[in-house]
């Protein structure tokens, strides 16, 4: 790997003539193989902000979906308004409004907080808030689609056994809906990992902000943005592995689940390895 890297650097060096861009490949390779503390911290922020925001989004999505399907009209109106508003305005506007808008108007100034031994700056809180609330609006529709995909007979069976609506939802409907929800949820989280880069606008030092600063500092946009792309690709690829694992776990009880599910390699590469069995259900 390192030999290959050196070869590329030498080649680039030879090719650089008068007026052409001077490649500085060590910037790229060091960013990948020897990331400094800034990059590692950016990576940590991107990952942790994504996870927390997505979790908030899922929770809000469940409430949004249930609200949208509620018999009680005010719940329905509230849920509809929430989804309408956050899907109808740009995320960038939401981020800047929540951070700059609220703090300048002294409605909420986002003071730093200490939680679980972590010092969380105001812009990070605002970023998580905006990403989570925005995500919740999209998750509402995904969760709702999952719930209505479940046979109404399931709710009736649960009710006939003496369960309340809440019990039936939590124990019977949502676990089944989860199987329908996870693939689009995977998409959402993949998006989330990349969308955190918008937080550059409120100076959250996440992955993109770090690389953006570095490229300005060394004037090497090609190398540093390419390195940023590789890091994002690494994150999203890792996630697709985790997602495949989750989907397999949720597949229990489904007709034809188990042996016939495509394996990890085939899911990632889109290729189905030939197996000796014919996979009869």
């Amino acid at each position, binding site marked *: 790997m390192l030999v290959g890297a050196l070869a590329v650097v030498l080649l680039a060096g030879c090719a650089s003539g008068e007026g052409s861009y001077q490649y500085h490949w060590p910037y790229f390779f060091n960013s990948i193989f020897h990331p400094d503390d800034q990059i590692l911290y950016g990576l940590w922020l991107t990952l942790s902000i994504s996870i927390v925001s997505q979790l908030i989004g899922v929770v809000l999505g469940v409430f949004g979906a249930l609200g949208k399907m509620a018999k009680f009209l005010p719940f329905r109106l509230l849920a509809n308004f929430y989804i309408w508003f956050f899907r109808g305005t740009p995320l960038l506007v939401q981020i800047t409004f929540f951070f700059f808008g609220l703090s300048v108007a002294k409605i909420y100034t986002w003071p730093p907080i200490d939680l679980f031994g972590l010092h969380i700056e105001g812009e990070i809180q605002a970023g998580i808030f905006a990403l989570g609330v925005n995500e919740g609006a999209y998750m509402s529709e995904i969760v709702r689609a999952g719930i209505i995909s479940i*046979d109404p007979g399931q709710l009736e*069976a649960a009710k*006939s*056994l003496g369960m*309340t609506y809440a019990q039936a939802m939590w*124990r019977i409907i949502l676990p089944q809906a989860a*199987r329908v929800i996870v693939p689009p949820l995977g998409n959402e989280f993949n998006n989330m990992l990349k969308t955190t880069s918008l937080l550059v606008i409120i100076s959250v030092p996440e992955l993109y902000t770090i690389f953006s600063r570095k490229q300005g500092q060394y004037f090497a946009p090609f190398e540093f943005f390419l390195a940023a792309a590789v890091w994002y690709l690494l994150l999203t690829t890792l996630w697709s592995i985790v997602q495949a694992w989750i989907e397999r776990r949720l597949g*229990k*009880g489904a007709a034809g689940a188990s042996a016939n599910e495509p394996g990890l390699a085939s899911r990632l590469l889109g290729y189905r390895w030939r197996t000796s069995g014919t996979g009869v259900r």
Partner: protein
Amino acid sequence: MSTIPRDILGAIGGVPKPPSEVVVQATDVNKWFGRLHVLRGISMTVKRQEVVVVIGASGSGKTTFIRCINHLEKIQSGRIFVNGHLIGYREVNGKLVEDRESNIARQRQEIGMVFQRFNLFPHKTALENIIEAPVHVRKIPVAEATETAKALLARVGLAAKADVYPAQLSGGQQQRVAIARALAMKPALMLFDEPTSALDPEMIGEVLEVMKELAREGMTMIVVTHEMGFAREVADRVVMMDEGQIIEEGTPEHFFTNPQQERTKSFLSKIL
């Protein structure tokens, strides 16, 4: 089917009780779906240990009626009592007001229901399906519920299928698990909504056999079905519904030898 220890008989509601006790008392039940008047003044009394079979063409309201008995459907007028409790409603100044959800849920614990399409929980094994409500609704310890569930599975001939998911069971097996699931709540009354209509012909027998056994043990049952053989063998009473009304009622013998109404005669001639 083997003989069952007496304590498990108790668990499935089969211990004999005074036969005069009224379990279901429905009076003048009316229901509309929008403008469609689907139940037109249904009255019915079912005593403890009685088996009532409800017959009638599709659209006659028979399924709707038994769904009203555990309040899966609302009614617009009339009263339905199960074990003396007004189902689904409170009476406020002579008017029906829908009861609190928790009260309705409590009432449903006493009423087992078996559906045409089984409605087993696909993400849970046969055993988990059966212990779900005892553990999470009745708050019975898991070990105790599991023991009862295993006895019930043995009772419906599926002891070996405890850890199997519904998708891996045949229709007849699924329906037998569904019956065991309803019985696990120790209901005072069992409602069967066309329990064999979605089954392949060769699986109907195994489900009916379980139901017959249950009837013999003294379970109070209301069964909507087209299985006339079952009606003839185990029903104490047959009720014929047509266009939302009960048009004829009597012993199975009465229905098979001497039906009075023209509508009944033509219906029976088509399905027998």
